[in-house]
């Protein structure tokens, strides 16, 4: 906020959301990281009347959707095939003697793949972004390579990357590299593909930090790498947390694609159940488990975006 005056705004013409007075409680100066000035929220406390209206409207809309589902000609078949409680429970707990695995247990593989991929993506993507942002003539060939990398993996569908690595690398019959599990190849494919996207997010974050910050740090005698590490990156990362989390929500879901390589993760376990018992309720279980994983992250992302928006508003008002 170069050149801005951070004195608290006094009047009502500050662009500072008026809701801060009612929702956030005590007034806080803008630019703080406090709780003042919430924007419109999904579950807003807009008074008793507003709550009543929104509850009624929700009931009507949901009721209509349920009614359409229930009166549809194929309703009972769909309910039997997709929402059969017995099948849902059976697929959830699994029964190896009858030839199918527990979907509830298999989701742990998704979680493990997700966590491993996330850490690797954060590292690899940052590395690629820094190379693309570099200016040194020595690094020119690496800049070209990273550009090709990003273009390639953003352009090729993840499923094809998965198949190429999951079936191509074992076929090479190399020692160690060709004898890994499907989950490892799956993680490798996810990391390659997502790093291309996330490196672009990093790049946007690095560009969002004003050049004067670099000038200020370098003028103090800090080296380029120290400037990057302590001044530029912390600000860049803070600016990109919401889009980063967005990518990770879709990464969580995309771990399901690893089932194409034969890994028994939630989707794979559901598939095995459905082809053994001829009932699709196992997929519903898998879907519910994925929702339980992704919804908290989605809500967290919303909250961070909201916080970010308030900070920008406060900055503009200051």
């Amino acid at each position, binding site marked *: *906020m*170069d*050149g801005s*005056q*951070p*004195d608290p705004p006094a009047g009502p013409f500050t662009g500072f959301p008026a809701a801060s007075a009612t929702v956030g409680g005590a007034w806080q*100066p803008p*630019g*703080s990281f406090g709780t003042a000035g919430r924007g419109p929220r999904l579950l807003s406390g807009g008074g008793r009347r507003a709550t009543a209206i929104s509850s009624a409207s929700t009931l009507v809309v949901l009721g209509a959707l349920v009614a359409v589902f229930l009166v549809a000609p194929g309703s009972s078949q769909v309910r039997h095939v997709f929402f059969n409680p017995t099948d849902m429970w059976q697929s959830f707990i699994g029964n190896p003697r009858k030839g199918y695995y527990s979907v509830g247990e298999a989701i742990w593989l998704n979680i493990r793949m997700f966590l491993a991929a996330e850490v690797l993506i954060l590292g690899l993507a940052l590395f690629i972004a820094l190379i693309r942002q570099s200016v040194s003539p020595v690094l020119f060939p690496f800049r070209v390579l990273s550009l090709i990398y990003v273009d390639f993996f953003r352009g090729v569908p993840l499923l094809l990357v998965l198949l190429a690595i999951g079936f191509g690398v074992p076929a090479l019959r190399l020692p160690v590299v060709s004898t890994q599990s499907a989950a490892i190849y799956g993680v490798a494919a996810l990391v390659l593909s997502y790093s291309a996207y996330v490196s672009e997010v990093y790049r946007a974050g690095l560009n969002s930090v004003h050049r*004067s*910050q670099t*000038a*200020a*740090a*370098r*003028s*103090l*005698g*800090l*080296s380029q790498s*120290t400037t990057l590490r*302590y*001044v530029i990156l*912390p*600000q860049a990362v*803070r600016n990109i947390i919401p889009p980063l989390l967005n990518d990770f929500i879709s990464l969580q879901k995309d771990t399901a694609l690893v089932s194409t390589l034969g890994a028994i993760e939630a989707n794979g376990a559901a598939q095995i159940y459905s082809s053994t018992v001829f009932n699709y309720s196992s997929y519903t279980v898998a879907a519910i488990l994925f929702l339980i994983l992704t919804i908290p992250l989605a809500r967290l992302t919303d909250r961070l975006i909201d916080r970010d928006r308030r900070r920008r508003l406060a*900055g503009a008002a*200051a």
Partner: protein
Amino acid sequence: MPGEAGMPDAAATSGTAIEVTGLRKAFGANEVLRGIDLEVSTHEVICLIGASGSGKSTLLRCLNLLEPINAGRISLWGQEITAAGIDQNLVRRSIGIVFQSYNLFPHMSVLHNVTLAPRKALGTPRPAAEEEARALLGRFGLLDKEAEFPDRLSGGQQQRVAIVRALAMRPQIMLLDEVTSALDPELVAEVLDVIRELAASGMTMLIATHEMGFARDIARRVCFLEEGRIIEDAPPAELFTAPKDERTQRFLRRIIAAGRL
């Protein structure tokens, strides 16, 4: 380079501090500095005045090596810092610069802002760096702000922190680039007081400013810049009352007409 701070310390207490000869700087086709010659003695305070775009800021940024120059040379105590093979980071430790827009690090507390460079560039241990930072903050009335983040401070406070941050590197020269231009009028005085104290302590300073009254009070010499050249270089009493060059006269007439002198 000799000396741990990159500059010969014995020489740093006397003689010519800065020597600029034939300095030229262009941004693309736009030549901003068109041959600057300037000599600054140790402990001397020089103010640079001139219209916006006359090259004052660019000159200061060149002295701090933030801008690569196109021609000419800059020496500090006889050592050329624009030569090849000079470690810019070492040079910058002995020349502090403060910007119009403060440029504090927004994600760090005041104390952290001040201690970052001593710790990461000089390798000062954290307790020592913090002790020194507190001493400096106390000297400029900011001790109670050490835990605040920049966005909770007034513009004047932010600018004083920026000055303290530069001083924490123990520079022998301070460059001030229109440090009061972004401030509300009532906050200007507190920053000018800090600069006066620095001048009284013997700091060698080059100050680009629009505060003519301040320049008249504090500077030993005032340089008037226009179109990338130093048009007139004289003690303030002379330059403000009897400017020799017609362009200086014209500039000062406009300043007086605007009620700023």
